């Protein structure tokens, strides 16, 4: 069932207008009133999304709105059309809802920033791009806005561009994402050359005609894009560095929305992946490894935002694992719950930073519970949800992923996931205990931590409620509300029968694992029965491996950046300066030498030049009269 409507465009248009207005008039005119434009615009977008979601989910029909034809060249035909189905509206709700809360939060957080208007121009621009990405109906439009969100991410990571580290982080995010996007673009081109269309529906219907090799290539190339954007294993290095951006940006872009674009894209293109078991297997393995590796790294970090960032990478790994084992709905379910609790964690750490005057190191915090009870409780809810403690959101979705992996024919990967879950609980509660418990490790006379103002507190509370209850959208497992809602999208996917005993067993196992992590963290950082230093000592190389992010950055630095640098240097010093400049300078020198001889003619007297012109005219006319005309003949 499909219905054409004309109000769908409001969802992207409102934030776009806000962005344009703030960008054009922000600097001179709007300045510190910028949020009066951005926040209502995103609010309108959110309300429209609710209407769209209600329409789609209650009537089981797809909405679409043709806008215009972007490219029309021969058979290459790209219409820009907004389409909203069940998958889309779930994403829309997440994107606009979290965006709205983050916008409200930013009013307080960015209050004294000189680039206030700039922030409120780029944030709505991001919302626009993300919404368009979600609403796209073909791969090219998807790709364009895929790049657009990358651009917004770049702009916002480098928001404090005067700080060198921020500029570098922005550049890194941009370059690393380009690697993934390169593969993505190749995938789209391959898709077009083999099917002559990019429209979702047409592509999915035509997939069975393709050879399995082509489909695998397409699927793997598309997944390359997802690896870059969703920070999967080899290319996750940009996400922790992206924490240089303002915290609301981290919460919105680098936790809740943009990084999940890769997951969304794979889910959107699930018919392609379903046609290629190899690709699915690659997705699952990469996802599981990412979940595990990032979780171990997070355990060793002391920067509170980096802990949360690695946690994001880890959770994205879970989602990829779910996609790979064919548990599409659990993947989207986890995306939904993750958006809530991870945005909450980021905003919570933002509140801590705000209170601690931009302090990020957990070793210089401690005991904050006393001064910031609201932040503490919301943060604990987020942490518990992330760690998968019953009955918070994370528990239900993560559990479903593990069950899906078990029955999807990858029990080993499910076990890896369980181990990662232990680390998840460990690092999350490590962060909570280091930050909020124990004695303050800063000077309370100099710093006076306090709970944030209302504009920041209200989003925290709303997100905390969301993190606590969204899990029940998926209760009872396999037949919850979310499953019914998303069923029509994934009807082509195979369904596994899940026995009740397995569900219960897995739930019990993961709860025990999470509690073990919690207990370990408590023992190490509250009671002190385990000395973290001693453990680190004992583990030695393993600890250093994790603490240095598994040496991915070092590896890239040595194997990619330095050789490229050296090559560029060689090109500059030898080829450019030596050969090209040499040739240019040489010819210039020859000209200069000859010019030295000619310059005697250059008297600098305008009169002489005029005389020369006149003389030339007389001569030319004379020559013409004498030889060119019939005057003397």
């Amino acid at each position: 069932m499909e219905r054409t409507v004309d109000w769908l465009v409001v969802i992207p248009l409102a934030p776009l207008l806000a962005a344009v207005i703030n960008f054009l008039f922000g600097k001179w005119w709007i300045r510190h009133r910028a949020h009066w434009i951005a926040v209502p615009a995103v609010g309108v977008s959110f309300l429209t999304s609710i209407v769209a979601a209600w329409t789609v989910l209650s009537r089981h029909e797809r909405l679409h709105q043709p806008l215009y034809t972007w490219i029309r060249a021969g058979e290459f035909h790209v219409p820009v059309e907004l389409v909203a189905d069940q998958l889309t509206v779930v994403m829309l709700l997440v994107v606009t809802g979290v965006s709205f809360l983050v916008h409200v939060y930013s009013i307080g957080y960015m209050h004294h920033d000189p680039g206030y208007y700039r922030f409120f121009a780029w944030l709505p621009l991001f919302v626009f791009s993300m919404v368009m990405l979600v609403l796209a109906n073909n791969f090219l439009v998807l790709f364009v806005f895929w790049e657009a969100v990358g651009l917004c991410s770049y702009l916002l990571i480098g928001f404090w561009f005067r700080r060198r580290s921020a500029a570098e982080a922005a550049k890194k995010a941009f370059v690393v994402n380009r690697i993934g996007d390169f593969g993505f673009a190749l995938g789209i081109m391959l898709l077009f050359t083999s099917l002559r269309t990019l429209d979702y529906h047409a592509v999915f219907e035509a997939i069975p005609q393709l050879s399995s090799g082509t489909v695998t290539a397409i699927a793997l190339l598309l997944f390359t894009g997802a690896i870059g954007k969703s920070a999967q294993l080899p290319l996750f290095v940009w996400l922790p560095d992206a924490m240089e951006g303002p915290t609301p940006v981290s919460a919105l872009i680098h936790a809740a929305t943009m990084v999940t674009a890769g997951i969304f894209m794979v889910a959107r293109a699930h018919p392609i992946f379903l046609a290629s078991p190899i690709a699915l297997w690659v997705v699952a393995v990469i996802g599981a490894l990412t979940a595990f590796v990032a979780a171990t790294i997070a355990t060793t970090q002391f920067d509170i935002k980096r802990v949360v960032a690695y946690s994001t990478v880890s959770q994205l790994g879970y989602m990829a694992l779910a996609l790979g084992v064919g548990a599409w709905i659990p993947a989207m379910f986890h995306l939904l719950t993750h958006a809530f609790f991870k945005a909450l964690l980021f905003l919570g750490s933002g509140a801590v930073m705000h209170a601690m005057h931009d302090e990020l190191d957990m070793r210089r915090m401690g005991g904050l519970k006393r001064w910031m009870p609201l932040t503490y409780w919301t943060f604990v809810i987020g942490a518990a949800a992330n760690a998968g403690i019953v009955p918070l959101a994370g528990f239900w979705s993560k559990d479903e992923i593990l069950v899906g992996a078990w029955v999807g024919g990858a029990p080993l990967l499910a076990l890896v996931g369980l181990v990662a879950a232990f680390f998840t609980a460990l690092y999350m509660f490590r962060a909570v205990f280091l930050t909020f418990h124990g004695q303050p490790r800063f000077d309370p006379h100099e710093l006076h931590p306090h709970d944030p103002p209302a504009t920041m507190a209200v989003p925290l509370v709303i997100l905390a409620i969301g993190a606590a209850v969204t899990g029940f959208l998926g209760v009872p497992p396999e037949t919850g509300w979310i499953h019914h809602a998303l069923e029509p999208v994934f009807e082509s996917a195979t369904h596994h029968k899940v026995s009740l005993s397995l569900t219960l067993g897995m739930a019990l196992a993961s709860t025990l694992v999470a509690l073990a992590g919690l207990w370990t963290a408590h023992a190490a950082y509250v009671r002190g029965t385990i000395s973290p230093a001693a453990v680190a000592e004992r583990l030695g190389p393993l600890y250093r491996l994790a603490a240095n992010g598994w040496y991915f950055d070092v590896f890239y630095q040595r194997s990619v950046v330095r050789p490229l640098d050296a090559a560029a240097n060689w090109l500059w010093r030898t080829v450019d300066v030596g050969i090209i400049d040499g040739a240019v300078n040489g010819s210039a020198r020859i000209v200069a030498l000859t010019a030295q001889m000619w310059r005697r003619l250059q008297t600098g007297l305008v009169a002489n030049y005029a005389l020369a012109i006149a003389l030339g005219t007389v001569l030319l006319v004379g020559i013409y009269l004498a030889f060119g005309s019939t005057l003397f003949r």
Partner: protein
Amino acid sequence: MSLQVLIFSLLACVSILGALGVVIARNPVHSAIGLVLSFLNVAAIYLIARAEFLAVVQVIVYAGAVIVLVVFVTMLVHPDDLPEFHGRRPLRIVTGLVLGVALLLEVAAAVLTRSLSGAPGPWTDEAVAAVGGNTQALGQTLYSDYMLAIQLTALLLLAATIGAIVLARPEAVSERVAAARRTLTISLAHPRGLDQPERPPALPRPSDGQVKPAGSGRPIVLARSANEFTEQPAWGEWRTP
């Protein structure tokens, strides 16, 4: 000889006399008067050739604006003693005259031995009268066949206006800014605008004003925000060096 030729010859003679006055007069203002005289007579000749609009434009633009501007500048340049340097370069005068006479002879020979050959165009007197007169006919041609040329000319005039304003400006703002830069060091004191992620150790907070002498006696201006010294200047104050 018809009356038309008589009038034409009269006007042409005065016009040439005016032109000679331009070259011969020692005083630039007298030159300008000669030029105006020449131009007015040429305008009258345009009337004979049925180019009424151009005649009026000739008077308004050439005589009324360009030459007035020249006279204006002449007076602005040296209001008291207008320089009179005619010649003192006999060789140049002789060369110029010889070249002039040569060219005149050549052109006269060419013009007098030739007659005009070319297909007459559509704009006979009747055709011009039919569309309402010379101005209307010219307008129709200008805004149909020469639309692009008109727009380019408009652009050229705009560029010339801007160029003249820039040339005639007494003092550039950039020079003032450069002068300030030579004596002041501008530093950013905003914590988020700094290179290090940590907050800088207790920056001097001048309570009594913005300027505080630094070690070498060079004053340091502390910016209160990162944008304070990077803000675009107001319109009209900016000029690239």
